[in-house]
């Protein structure tokens, strides 16, 4: 196992039976690692094996070959499950339970890891904007609300590793930003994550590394923000008490309060430089500074596609619609 890694996967193989004689090979030698406080983005076409990978990591399915070391144990171990958070793709829950009952039910299952499960449930409900729907039954919830419930449940046991299968699906733009902020907070606290998504911009914000899953293995690994690409935006964090002062010359500047800090995300690079100089002159401490570099989208698309896609070319040639 790689030193310090929360998750280490080596040469994983898995196939499914199709009928009596045929088998479809989904994973063929998948290897990856995720460290503490690291977010690994898993990209790939539909059916590439992302969900299968997650099922293997959570012990819901067994690999045919290869090794998985997760949180110092094996998938399916009780202690591993206690320290793991999983948000499945298209989450489903018992339809007749209310949101509060469901969260308390899950809280009771991981109670040994929490000081008070009820407080944790209430706090997460507030974080994910679920307090208003807490008395509603699951069957009455919209798809987006259900997704937020699933994410809240994934964070319930204060996990050290999060496995998130399309976590931002069905969320509106505001909810999406809120969830991204919560996940970034988890990342700062040292939680490792493996996240699958089809939306590059989401992974660009969250992930440290991207793995392109193709032909059953990681075909290409890309470090987000790697040298070579020019920085396009910056994330800056300052103490909340200084935010008023910081915005004196920039009243249009929009930030998000995160505890005792204020975060300004996605600031255009040139503007961020100007602000940093001004804030430095004012003596405003910079608590966190992160550059965002443009992902090589064309290269990623080419890695995912079955056939090479020329840079800048449309991803698909549209045929004329028949009359």
């Amino acid at each position, binding site marked *: 196992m790689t030193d310090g890694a929360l998750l280490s996967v080596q040469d994983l193989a898995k196939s499914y039976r199709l009928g009596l004689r045929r088998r479809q090979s989904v994973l063929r030698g998948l290897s990856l690692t995720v460290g503490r406080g690291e977010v690994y983005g898993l990209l790939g076409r539909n059916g590439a094996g992302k969900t299968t990978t997650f099922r293997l990591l959570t012990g819901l399915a067994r690999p045919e070959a290869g090794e998985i070391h997760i949180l110092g144990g094996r998938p399916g171990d009780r*202690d591993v499950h206690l320290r793991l958070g999983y948000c499945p793709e298209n989450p*489903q829950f018992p339809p007749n339970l209310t949101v509060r009952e469901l969260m308390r039910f899950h809280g009771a299952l991981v109670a040994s890891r929490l000081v008070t499960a009820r407080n944790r449930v209430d706090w997460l409900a507030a974080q994910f904007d679920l307090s208003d729907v807490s008395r509603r039954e699951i069957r009455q919830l919209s798809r987006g609300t259900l997704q937020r419930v699933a994410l809240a449940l994934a964070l319930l046991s204060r996990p050290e590793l999060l496995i998130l299968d399309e976590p931002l699906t069905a969320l509106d733009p505001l909810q999406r930003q809120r969830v991204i902020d919560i996940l970034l907070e988890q990342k700062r606290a040292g939680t490792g994550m493996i996240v699958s998504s089809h939306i590059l911009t989401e992974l660009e914000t969250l992930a440290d590394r991207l793995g392109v899953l193709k032909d059953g293995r990681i075909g290409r690994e890309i470090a987000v923000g790697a040298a070579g690409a020019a920085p396009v935006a910056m994330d800056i964090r300052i103490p909340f008490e200084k935010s008023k002062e910081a915005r004196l010359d920039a009243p249009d500047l929009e930030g998000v309060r995160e505890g005792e800090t204020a975060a300004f995300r996605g600031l255009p690079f040139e503007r961020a430089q100007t602000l940093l100089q001004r804030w430095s002159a004012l003596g405003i401490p910079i608590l966190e500074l992160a550059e965002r570099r443009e992902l090589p989208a064309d290269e990623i698309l080419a890695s995912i596609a079955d056939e090479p896609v020329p840079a800048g070319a449309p991803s698909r040639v549209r045929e004329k619609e028949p009359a």
Partner: protein
Amino acid sequence: MRNVAVLTLAGLREALRDRLLYSLLGLGAILLCVLALVAPLTLGARDKTFHDAALAWIHVSAMLAMLVMGAWNLHRERERGIWLSVLTRPVSRQEFLLGRLSGLLGVLGLVIGAAALIYLLIGWATGVPLLPGLAVGLLYVFLEMSLLAGLVLLFSTFTGFAMTLFLALAVFAAGHLSADLLRFAALTESGFLRALALGAHWLLPHLELYRVRNSLVGGSTPAPDAVLAALGYTLLYFTALVGAAAAVFARREIR
């Protein structure tokens, strides 16, 4: 055991909000009311007819609850992936199965209890005297149906809803004929058929053990040793069913 208790409570809470449960009980109440009104037409056998039909109704309600609520809910949960969120918690598969089964048995107890209450209320309102040995009769229904719950659980670990329903009903029906298999084994001259009949006899549940309705309505209650024997047999067979279900489920991949 804590996880089993948590799962049982969640299962019960969910079942209590299932409209099917109330439809089942409501329909039964209407049937019993009609029966109470029609029973006097039986000329002198009113009480017996009422008790007989009421016990039969309790039996059928419990059976429908296990087949429809049990098999359908398990199937729905599996197909929709509801199990995923629980099985990725620190819950072993055995605990999960036991929790689901305890929830089912809780529902069974509720259905039998509620149906018996309706029966008693209608009987009281129409002046039908209380059936001696009713508690024993209800216990026998519970024991028999808990075996059906075990069968439903076992089959639902490896097959779909329709097949679970078919297999559970087939074994249940054959279980009522297991004594005939013994008679057949004594009569047949073929060694192979005798071995087959004897094997099936010991493999199938001996459900004729629980056939006490006629004697109860006729006024005789099963002897205490017979009740103990039925309890012991149920416990043994039920444990075997749960063990088999746990063995299958432990190997199963959850999609």
